[in-house]
């Protein structure tokens, strides 16, 4: 790698991406001494480490994941810290509240680890900030050209139309969405005058943390407190689909809000009525644009469709290499913490 001391700034060891010069891990898979966390989703924030660094906006949601006692250092976006021999700063990734890219600098050499990111705007988090660097470590969850997102406002209109149509049939509308990030993005965008909105407990807990930070969401009621479901919108984690929890709602229609819904088969095998294509990850054009704007000499590709993205970049004159994730091609949405 391009650097002046012979040792690359980041390397992969059994716990994940490690920066020896600063003695910290980024999104480690196991328990380590110091973990820099890009965001609080379970496939990035593993509990058990001795200390965490995260962006200030994400402190509360990370706290909910790793426990009340663990030291978490929270830093403002853009604020520079010195750790060992490197300077480190966190910059908005636009993925969920508090999500960050990690910028590491040593003697004029800059590496950026994207974490998960999207370029599209989101009322619940700071927008993605393009950074220049020599080495860019990018995710590739949706690294195929079939993944191209429609405008979010169109998708929200489609959700409204589905909700209203269900109201006419006296049905509830059960909308599955990741309880951290996607659910709040939807709740910040839907029109609460259409009808009452209920939430699963896992969603409601995150709503509370979002609202505490001043993010405006549509008014919601924990589903445990509801009784009349016809015409209501119910937002729940995807893991509730097909469980006993779902069966209390009488007549209802199901939908899933996810980038995976771009593929019919992904929706049909879950026996969902509708799929709304709205993602907190970059689509294919987004990934290519983000890579280009870094003007990086090297691109490391992780998390998702690594091989196709690496090959595409290489065929377009970009040095690129695939970095192992947990294991080959784990592609479905991360297991989300549903809870009671």
């Amino acid at each position, binding site marked *: 790698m391009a650097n002046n001391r012979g040792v690359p700034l980041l390397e992969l060891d059994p716990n994940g991406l490690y920066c020896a010069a600063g003695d910290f891990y980024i999104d480690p898979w196991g328990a380590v001494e110091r973990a820099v966390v890009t965001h609080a989703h379970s496939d990035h924030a593993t509990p058990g480490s001795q200390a965490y660094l995260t962006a200030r906006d994400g402190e509360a949601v990370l706290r909910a994941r790793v426990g009340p006692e663990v030291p978490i250092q929270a830093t403002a976006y853009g604020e520079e810290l010195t750790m060992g021999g490197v300077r480190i700063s966190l910059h908005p990734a636009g993925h969920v509240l508090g999500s960050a890219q990690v910028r590491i600098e040593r003697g004029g050499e800059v590496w950026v680890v994207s974490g998960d990111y999207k370029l599209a705007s989101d009322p619940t988090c700071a927008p993605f900030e393009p950074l220049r660097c020599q080495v860019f470590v990018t995710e590739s969850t949706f690294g*195929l*050209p079939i993944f191209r997102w429609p405008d979010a406002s169109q998708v929200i209109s489609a959700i409204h139309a589905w909700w209203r149509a269900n109201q006419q049939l006296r049905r509830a509308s059960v909308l599955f969405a990741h309880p951290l990030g996607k659910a709040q993005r939807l709740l910040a965008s839907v029109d609460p005058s259409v009808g009452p909105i209920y939430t699963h407990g896992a969603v409601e807990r995150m709503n509370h943390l979002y609202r505490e930070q001043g993010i405006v969401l549509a008014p919601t009621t924990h589903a445990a407190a509801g009784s009349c479901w016809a015409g209501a919108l119910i937002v729940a984690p995807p893991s509730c689909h097909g469980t006993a929890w779902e069966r209390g709602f009488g007549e209802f*229609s199901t939908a899933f809000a996810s980038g995976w819904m*771009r593929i*019919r*088969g992904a929706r049909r095998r879950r*026996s*969902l*009525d509708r799929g709304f294509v709205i993602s907190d990850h970059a689509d294919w054009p987004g990934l290519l644009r983000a890579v280009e704007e870094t003007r990086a000499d090297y691109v490391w590709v992780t998390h998702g469709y690594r091989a196709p993205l690496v090959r595409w970049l290489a065929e377009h004159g970009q040095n690129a290499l695939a970095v192992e994730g947990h294991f*080959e091609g784990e592609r479905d949405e991360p297991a989300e913490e549903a809870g009671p």
Partner: protein
Amino acid sequence: MKDFAELYAALDRTTRTNDKVAALIRYLKAAPPEDAAWAVHFLIGRRPKRLLPSRRLAEWAVEEAGIPDWLFGECYQAVGDFAETMALLQPPAATSSDRPLRYWVEDRLLPLRDVDDQTRRARVVSAWREMDEGQRFAWNKLITGEFRVGVSQRLVFRAVAEVAGTTPEAVAHRLMGEWQPTAEFWRQLLAEDAPEADLSRPYPFCLAYPLEGSVEALGDLGAWQVEWKYDGIRAQLIRRQWQTFIWSRGEELVTGRFPELQALGALLPEGTVIDGEILPWKQGGPLPFGQMQRRIGRKLLGPKILAEVPVVLVGFDLLEFQGEDVRSRPLAWRRAELEKLAPPASALVLSPVVEATSWEELARLRQHARARKVEGFMLKRLESLYRVGRRRGDWWKWKIEPYSVDAVLIYAQPGTGRRAGLFTDYTFGIWDNGKLVPFAKAYSGLDDEEIRQVDAFVRRNTIEKFGPVHAVKPELVFELAFEGIQASPRHRSGIAVRFPRMARWRHDKKPGDADTIDTIRALLR
């Protein structure tokens, strides 16, 4: 095309049959008659003759998308549907088409067959540019002829019946045989007293469910007719106005392939329809089904193959007698008339009625079914009418237990359709001199949770890739079930099996416990 693409989307986006039927009715009532006729044509699974090779279509889609071939392959693996992959890769739509379905099929789709590749390319690309995403997808489905949309024929019959004010059974019958999707046909379909338009029209087949639970639960054996279940080609032989027609259950007119049965038709009285099973037959018994496949594979039937693999119709039911539909008469009556009209020493073999005094005696006989080259018994209530489609209660198939072996998962590849992007298509190996040789492929038998577990296993344990096929660490053992077995020089194991599927995941077994080629050869006998 707008309404039709919306119908497709509406059918695709609900799992409730009532919602599907409602969407069909809405479309059929609003559509111009010729569009309705075409829509029904496609929805019940009819397709135009192959218009162009899908390889070409993929080339044009790749050019339009501005991506290399290999990336199209990666995308297809993720999507698991060819038409859908092409639609997803097109540049964002700038417009959508208001033209009717009839225009897109008759003026744009069908003429593709008669022009050269360069013209086809220009026309297909221009069609994509005139459509929005949903329309492109429906159009690609029409071109590739893979028009399956999650509605069964029965739902279409129900919807048409609702629009026509008649019964689904009547609609099913009117939609059998040969017809052209025209406005005129649609009007006739809806007409109260439709004239019998098609001389060759068959009846909808009555189908049996596999027996569930114990056979004693069927009650008094005396109320049942028991026949052997043969493994052939289910067909109707039709004799009307001095012409003979033979329809397969796949609704294909196959008259020309069976000259023996054409000759048989000439011996039958006017106005006769017989339901039965076409079988390769010699010396009073069936030949292995592999022989039939040899014969079906031929374009031209020479005297040699006709002598080697002669066929008969094992007839078991009479649907039309003296020009009259007799499906609502009891089976006992139909069978008796069939016996009376069967010409002696002809290619019509009456399906033997198995005589037994008790269910136990039948169960004993059933154990020798394999030696008789049959798949088990058909159980039919003597009072039963000849009904439309698959029904519970009157007709049951009581099949013999399948063969079973334990084999090791050695290759996996992603599935298609609703299994897209998941490793669901497996190849299993058995031991041959200390090495695992591929033995059978199987796709079905696991539940969703097991599929997820195997998928995760494949991702963690891939040792080599050949395109979409992943070679995996030989670790998982499955019990495979299959119906038939025969020697085959074309298979690496030297053995071919019929209808293999996964019966059980043997968590309790290690790869070393799987079966060997020798134990499987012993099944060949």
